[in-house]
């Protein structure tokens, strides 16, 4: 009697586990921004050279910052980091001390080299001009005399 009840309980537990996961997956679909919007990327992911400081910065960025600033640093919960108009010192200070109520501080987590690497990566991000390649080619063509 006890065994059959436990087996029934086990079967239902298994079903409810999968149902909970399925619900989470459905929920993810609901909260995901429109696919179409994600296809129009504002900025192409910037991948600096393998050996540069900026490349180390990118690795750190993906591990610690991408969940707020987006994988391509074009902003998500946090702001777009392309073309940041702040000095390197100011960027380093924000990473180290954070912004109250907006961004956590990473001073104890990152070494000075890490902060320099992250700053170099942010500096390597080229701002988006917001036009298509064909338009950009037309814009960049020199004017005829």
């Amino acid at each position, binding site marked *: 009697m*006890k*065994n059959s*009840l*436990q087996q*029934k*309980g*086990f079967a*239902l*537990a*298994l*079903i*409810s*586990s*999968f*149902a*909970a*996961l399925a*619900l*989470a*997956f459905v*929920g*993810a*679909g*609901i*909260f*995901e*921004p429109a696919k179409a919007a994600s296809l129009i990327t504002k900025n192409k992911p910037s991948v600096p050279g393998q050996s540069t400081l900026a490349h180390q910065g990118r690795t750190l960025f*993906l*591990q*610690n*910052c*991408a*969940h*707020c600033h987006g*994988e391509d640093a074009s902003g*998500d*919960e946090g702001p777009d980091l392309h073309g940041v108009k702040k000095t390197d010192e100011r960027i380093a200070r924000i990473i180290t001390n*954070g912004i109250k109520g907006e*961004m*956590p*501080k*990473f*001073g*104890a*987590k990152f070494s000075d080299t890490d902060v320099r690497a992250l700053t170099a990566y942010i500096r390597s991000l080229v701002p988006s001009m917001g036009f298509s390649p064909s338009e950009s080619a037309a814009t960049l063509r020199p004017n005829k005399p």
Partner: protein
Amino acid sequence: MNNVLWARMHGGATHFPIALLIVSVFFDHAGFWWQNNPRRRDFIVVGFFSVTIAAAASFAAVLSGLALSQGKLLGTGAMALHHGFVWPAFSVLVGLATWRLIVRERATRRAFASYLVLATATAAAMIAAGFWGGEMALGR
């Protein structure tokens, strides 16, 4: 809804299932190992209600988290680690609560021992998920 609101909701909602699951595991262990204690049955009852409420509360935590991350099931870096622990813990927690609801106090000692092993592992996974969630939210 504003992301800051989701962040606060998630921060509030996640602590209930984490704390309640730890409490449940603690009291279930007390009930399991402390067999001659007159309060043994009370310990098991506390464990039962704690795990049931933890499972119910985990839905609020998961939904607010999905809203906060805009539907990301894995993500990158700290978020991937957070989700790597969240999904197994959430799924097993719901299963454990379902099993407890059906079996109640009629579990054999061997089955309850297996339950305890799984519940302890789930609590550990939940703590790990909380740790990586904290890493994301607070930095260091």
